């Protein structure tokens, strides 16, 4: 799987879905019936933290020493490094070197990671990015389980993207940070706090939760952190407070848990009109591509515009009927037998004759212009040998490597859809139970003329055909991409074995 190839992940999940057995009339009947159960309030909970702004009298209280201990990026596990560097990177580039696997680089620069607190149970890392964004990452000191490349530590990460003045660490004005955990009680529908934790500034020795009737549950600060632990008593907590070493309350934030108020009668409201198309950026597009039914223009700012020449084409109707599409673009690189893909996209529901989106994001992680390809990813079901084929219905390569990627991906998808057909799944389950797979000739016979038997495990089928080899336990399906590269998938029962399609398609 390639980073950013969300489409493939979505495909894989979609493959687990069953048939549509919905019944709208049943919904209407239920809506008319009065429930015999105690009504459960599920109104949206709005949680507001309102600092009351206790004066701190000019004391140095609440200052947070975030110098901490530098954490070299190379000391992070690969997964944590990926999260720290690329999830907020606005300008990712792929670097190809002859004979080497391609690698990602973030042109924005890398963050400085500093461990600013660690109470032995939870660590807090401050990540400072060259563009001024600051993130606070936290997680268990012992890390998460990672069977391959060491522990992963980052559990949650919050950033001040879009709010540069927001501090992610305590300040004299707000000497604690607050991470509240809630549960929704199904009995009365009220939200209840199950835990509170966070960082504290200098001089804060205790943090308290104040109940509606005034009682206070306190916890002692350890290092620069506090954590009430679980479970805390079930009460109507209304505020969180901070105390200095004399026991004086120096800060209070109201915790407001409220139901969303009812709005005006909706019968009086008009159906909201579809949002207007965003204007095209000034200047000319830097990339332009055409298909028989649509054109795609890419602007330097990462704005992408699609125009369908007709809303009556089969392709347009297919996309419209099946719930719209996702407009996605990507950058790709190939080397040493591996593809590297950075792609991203936005939903275009509902589909319109003109589709425009801005693929730049506040939080990064998406490719930046110019792109190697753009496409409209349909949401129709995908089956082996179906009429939609294995290319997207609207797909434009802008570069030679983009063309090669789309071609190889189509071939890889063909193999992927093939090995997950119902017929192949029956064979795979039989092998999983210990039975022998049918001969390659028999498998080919069951699938018809697009599948041919191979006498050699590494054999090649004619172009556009899928070749199948088996020894009774293992099945190898292979196909030549348009550029002649042989793609293959090894199937051992229900598991997928060796394959060179992993970065191109989800094969399962």
């Amino acid at each position, binding site marked *: *799987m390639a980073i950013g190839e969300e489409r493939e*992940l979505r495909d894989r999940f979609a493959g687990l879905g069953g048939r549509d057995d919905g019944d*709208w009339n049943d919904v209407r009947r239920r809506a008319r019936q009065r429930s015999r159960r105690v009504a459960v309030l599920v109104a949206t909970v709005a949680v507001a933290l309102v600092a009351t702004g206790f004066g701190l009298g000019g004391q140095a209280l609440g200052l947070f020493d975030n110098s901490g201990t530098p954490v070299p990026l190379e000391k992070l596990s690969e997964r944590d490094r990926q*999260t720290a560097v690329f999830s907020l990177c606005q300008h990712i580039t792929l670097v190809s070197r002859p004979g080497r696997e391609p690698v990602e680089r973030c042109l924005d620069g890398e963050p400085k990671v500093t461990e600013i607190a660690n109470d032995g149970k939870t660590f807090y890392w401050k990540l400072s990015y060259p563009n001024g964004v600051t993130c606070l990452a936290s997680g268990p000191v012992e890390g998460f389980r990672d069977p391959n490349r060491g522990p*992963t530590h980052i559990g949650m*990460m919050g950033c001040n993207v879009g709010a540069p003045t927001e501090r992610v660490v305590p300040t004299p004005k707000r000497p604690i940070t607050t991470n509240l955990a809630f549960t929704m009680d199904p009995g009365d529908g009220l939200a209840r706090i199950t835990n509170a934790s966070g960082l504290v500034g200098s001089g804060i020795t205790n943090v308290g939760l104040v109940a509606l009737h005034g009682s206070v549950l306190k916890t002692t600060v350890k290092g620069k952190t506090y954590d009430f632990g679980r479970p805390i008593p079930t009460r109507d907590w209304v505020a969180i407070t901070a105390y200095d070493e004399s026991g004086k309350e120096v800060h209070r934030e109201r915790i407001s848990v409220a139901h969303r108020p*009812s709005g005006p009668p909706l019968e009086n409201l008009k159906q909201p009109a579809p949002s207007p198309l965003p204007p095209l950026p000034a200047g000319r597009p830097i990339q332009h591509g055409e298909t028989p039914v649509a054109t795609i223009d890419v602007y330097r700012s990462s704005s992408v515009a699609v125009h369908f020449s007709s809303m009556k084409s089969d392709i347009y109707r297919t996309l419209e009927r099946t719930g719209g599409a996702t407009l996605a673009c990507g950058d790709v690189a190939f080397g040493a037998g591996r593809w590297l893909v950075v792609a991203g996209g936005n939903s275009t529901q509902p589909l319109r004759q003109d589709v425009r989106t801005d693929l730049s994001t*506040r939080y990064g992680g998406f490719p930046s212009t110019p792109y190697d390809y753009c496409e409209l990813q349909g949401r129709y079901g995908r089956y082996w040998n179906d009429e939609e084929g294995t290319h997207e219905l609207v797909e434009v390569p802008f570069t030679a490597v983009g063309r090669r990627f789309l071609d190889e991906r189509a071939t890889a998808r063909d193999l992927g859809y093939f090995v997950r057909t119902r017929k192949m799944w029956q064979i795979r389950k039989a092998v999983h139970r210990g039975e022998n797979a049918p001969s390659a000739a028999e498998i080919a016979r069951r699938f018809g003329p697009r599948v041919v038997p191979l006498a050699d495990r590494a054999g090649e089928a004619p172009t556009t055909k899928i070749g199948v080899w088996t020894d009774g336990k293992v099945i190898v399906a292979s196909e030549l991409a348009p550029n002649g590269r042989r793609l293959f998938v090894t199937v051992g029962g229900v598991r997928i074995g060796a394959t060179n399609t992993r970065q191109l398609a989800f094969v*399962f």
Partner: protein
Amino acid sequence: MDERTQAIELLYRQRYVRFRDGVATITGSYDTARDVVQETFAKALRRRLTFRGEGSLEAWVWKIAIRTAWERRRELPDLSLNGTIEAALVEPERDPVLAEALRTLPAKRRLIVFLRYFADLSYGEIASICEVSEGTVGATLSQARAALEELLQKEDARGHR
């Protein structure tokens, strides 16, 4: 029929399967998930006047669906995603590799992955449902994708042996 009812019906007809499959990861069975989704949309109809259009209708209905699913399990959900949400594939044998990979994800990441890939929700909608920032959703998905990639590569290695 008022316009909001029409919008909810349209949502149901277009997205029923995604709701059912997504909810099934919480309830543990398709039958229960189907019932939860039916009840969810019935609640949505009854409470449509409380939807103020501040976010997407789908995200609003998803919140109801998730809470209804949790009610059905008689478990207390952790809306801030700091608790344990035991969501998993309802039929792991249909994709044992993916099931195994998902099982190793921390619960909070797993739920966001389900909302993204089963429910096909946008970052903003997931952020609204889970009451976290979009950046957190992005970072979480990035971590989850990387984790799945590693586990699937491990499967590759097994296949070579």
